[in-house]
């Protein structure tokens, strides 16, 4: 059997570091010790999210298609076993446990201030031992059906997915993470085992532990519990996505006091994923355009067009990217028009050195801060690994970013022909 390969990666701004371990089982493990912390946070994730509905295994000929919502469904089911479910086991050792499914990953996590070893054993054990029958799958279809309903009562959630639905023709990012009642009704136990077998292969997963722990403690358990999987790689296979949008406006009626809106620009790129440079540069641009110190924000606030819920975000993942502006407004169309105008003006005048240095300083502070949360750290390590980035590289990128790069990105982004506005508002009585 081969040995674990351990590397220590240090950051000189923070004066701390983490261990990156190529585990002999084929799993990538990260340990970020912070021995002055009371809590320990562990997350075990697979690069398998709601968008992975069409894929090809390295050992198969054909592409497999699965119903929307399968990743999320599988996440729910993994907590069960023949005997005690994972929650009942964690209750005995005193951890707070959860899991989540996003567009591009599924993660199982817990946080505790004691009994780390026992909790960690539970995590590795239940994620590695799937158990489901046709009967338990049936029961879960009802439960998740309810969950889908509940999200339909959430104006922000609806607003975002309506926006994505109007923006994307084929990309599965447009479908609710939990799927639809129809799609989840097609899920079978056999299908879940097949997906598990494909995506929960250790070579497709990552494990990160941060906080009050040591490498020895983590590896002590991992060496004992993790056995090598037959290596399988998975190829994501998406249908082609045209550059054009489906429609530029979408509206839904829900009982909300102030209309909720999301406004964004669909982007098309050759490479499926955005680099860290692009990601950070775009966040800076969004902060300059519509952040709280922007003239636009003050104008919208003074004119009664937005409130404190107004925010920006660079929404992106595998084969999708869109800068978004969202919030509540009595007049979303006017907000969208003013955003377009402000972007147009900035494209003409370009970002000044002074503006750039101010937001860069702010971004640096935010990055430093992010490194005090054990949950942000552990999740950050897993996510960075899935996109082949190194956790600390953000510091270098912020330091080396130059204004020309940012201005270039500004000028070529925000194509008005691909802008979409989504609104959720109260039904107008005629």
């Amino acid at each position: 059997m081969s040995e674990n390969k351990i590397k220590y990666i240090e950051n000189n701004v923070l004066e701390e570091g983490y261990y990156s371990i190529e585990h002999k089982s084929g799993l990538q493990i990260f340990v970020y010790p912070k021995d002055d912390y009371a809590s320990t946070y562990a997350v075990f994730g697979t690069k398998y999210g709601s968008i992975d509905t069409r894929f090809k295994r390295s050992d198969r000929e054909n592409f497999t298609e699965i119903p929307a919502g399968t990743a999320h469904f599988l996440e729910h089911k993994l907590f069960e076993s023949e005997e005690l479910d994972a929650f009942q086991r964690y209750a005995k050792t005193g951890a707070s446990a959860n899991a989540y499914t996003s567009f591009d990953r599924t993660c199982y996590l817990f946080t505790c201030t004691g009994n780390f070893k026992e909790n960690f054993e539970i995590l590795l054990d239940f994620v590695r031992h799937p158990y489901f029958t046709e009967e338990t799958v049936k029961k879960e279809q009802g439960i998740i059906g309810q969950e889908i309903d509940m999200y339909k009562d959430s104006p922000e959630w609806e607003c975002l997915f309506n926006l994505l639905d109007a923006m994307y023709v084929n990309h599965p990012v447009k479908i609710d993470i939990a799927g639809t009642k129809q799609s989840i009704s097609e899920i079978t136990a056999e299908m879940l085992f097949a997906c598990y077998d494909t995506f929960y292969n250790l070579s497709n997963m990552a494990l990160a532990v941060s906080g009050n722990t040591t490498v020895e403690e983590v590896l002590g358990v991992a060496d004992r519990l993790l056995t090598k999987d037959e290596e399988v790689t998975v190829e994501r296979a998406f249908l082609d996505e045209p550059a054009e949008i489906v429609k530029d406006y979408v509206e839904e009626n829900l009982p909300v006091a102030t209309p909720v809106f999301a406004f964004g620009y669909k982007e098309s790129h050759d490479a499926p994923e955005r680099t860290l440079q692009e990601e950070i540069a775009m966040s800076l641009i969004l902060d300059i355009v519509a952040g709280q110190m922007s003239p636009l924000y003050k104008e919208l606030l003074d004119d009664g067009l937005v409130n404190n819920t107004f925010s920006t975000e660079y929404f992106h993942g595998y084969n999708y990217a869109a800068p978004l502006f969202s919030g509540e407004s009595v007049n979303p169309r006017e907000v969208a028009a003013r955003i377009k105008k402000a972007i147009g003006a900035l494209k003409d005048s370009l970002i000044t050195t002074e503006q750039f240095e101010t937001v860069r300083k702010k971004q640096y502070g935010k990055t430093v801060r992010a490194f005090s949360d054990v949950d942000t750290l552990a999740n950050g390590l897993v996510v960075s690994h899935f996109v082949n980035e190194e956790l600390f590289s953000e510091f270098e990128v912020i330091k080396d970013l130059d204004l020309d790069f940012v201005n270039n990105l500004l000028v070529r982004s925000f194509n008005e022909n691909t802008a979409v506005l989504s609104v959720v508002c109260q039904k107008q009585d005629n």
Partner: protein
Amino acid sequence: MKFNKKLWKPLRRYGNILFIDNNTENIGCGKMKYNFNSEIHSQGVELCNITAQGFKSACVTISFVLPLDENAAHYALVPGMLTRSSEKYPDVTCIERKLALLYGAELVADITKTGENQILKLGVSCIDDRFAFDGESITAECSELLFELVFRPLLVNGVFAQKDVESEKRLLCERLAAEISDKRVYAKNRCEEIMFSDETYGIHRLGTQKDIETITPESLYEAYKKILSSAKICVCVSGKTDYQAVKNTLAKYLGCIERDLVMSETLFVERAEDVTYKKECEPVKQGKLVMGFRMGMRDADDNYAARRVMVDIFGGSPHSKLFTVVREKMSLCYYCSARLIRAKGVMFVQSGIESYNEEKATEAILQQLEDIKKGNFTDSDIEASVKALEDSFKSVSDSPETLDSWFMSQCVSGEYKYPEDFIDEFKKVTRADIIRAAEDVTLDTIFMLEGTAEGGETDE
């Protein structure tokens, strides 16, 4: 970091409720070596200092404790007003620019209700000085900025600026309206309103829309002056900061204010006489059932530990009866959890259900409480709850912000306890204590929000 919390889909139905817990007592301290000190600065003014090594951030906060009364809307408007402009930084752009230059320092303005007190909290949190590019003191500038905003507001003809007041009124009204749109919050608020219709506690922490509409620049300035003169004030400095400098600055600002402290005492109603029931309909898909209980407490410390452990077994965590029986086994609720409001001696059970299950769910929830009274729970249930509480209380020492919240949540009484003090009490709780705590509970109010929208797909 490539990490976006907003788009997480949490696994379990209790998720959002269990972890978003504003309960003042829900956090605690671990092994991070920190020191807490408090001193009386002047009449009704306390100054607290939390020092620790190694934190990446620091924060300074100032809290104003006010009796919850008909001025709630006026008081609630003040934090927004103060963080929007000041003499030195006349508009939001100037303030935000200053914060950005302080390496993205964050300004917090918070309005909460603890018992029958309204608490306004303003604060700045920033990265530690060792991360500054040019050796400047970020923390010193941040505390200066905070005091500048709080004590030197922008005035036009001796009162707040009309335009800003109108804008803040709109923002506060929209915040209130958002609580109506969020049906989970709405149902909880309605249950409180009905349950406390004859008590001060029934007043919403943000006041009412009607009250907000009556606010003028003059009346708001009067309210601001009243806050400075009559509220109990707590300043808390956490992280590596120059405490003495903060103390001096505070003395400078407070020196010229004539103080006349007003404190209120929270009414504790030990038992409910009978059950009030109220139902409303809304075109939403999921129904919301909220039940309000009286805990039998005479004050916030009255047998608190036993009651807290009992509530945890009943509906506090994934191993609780509400979760394992009502949700998992009976599949009656999408989410179902119980929360103890220590400062008022009451408990709320919140659940999301199919509206046709209302009767079954109500019955099942009450049955779980009966089961605890009968002693139908195991020693490992007690152990699990004590462990879970210990876990959440301990983790508070991991950041200056959580330490600040922990200690400042106790600023009404000013009797500052450490998380360990509570953990020790939880460990002493016996089976008999838990049964007694459950026996003290009486159901006061049920509020049902019936969903009348179709449950199926809405995609056309």
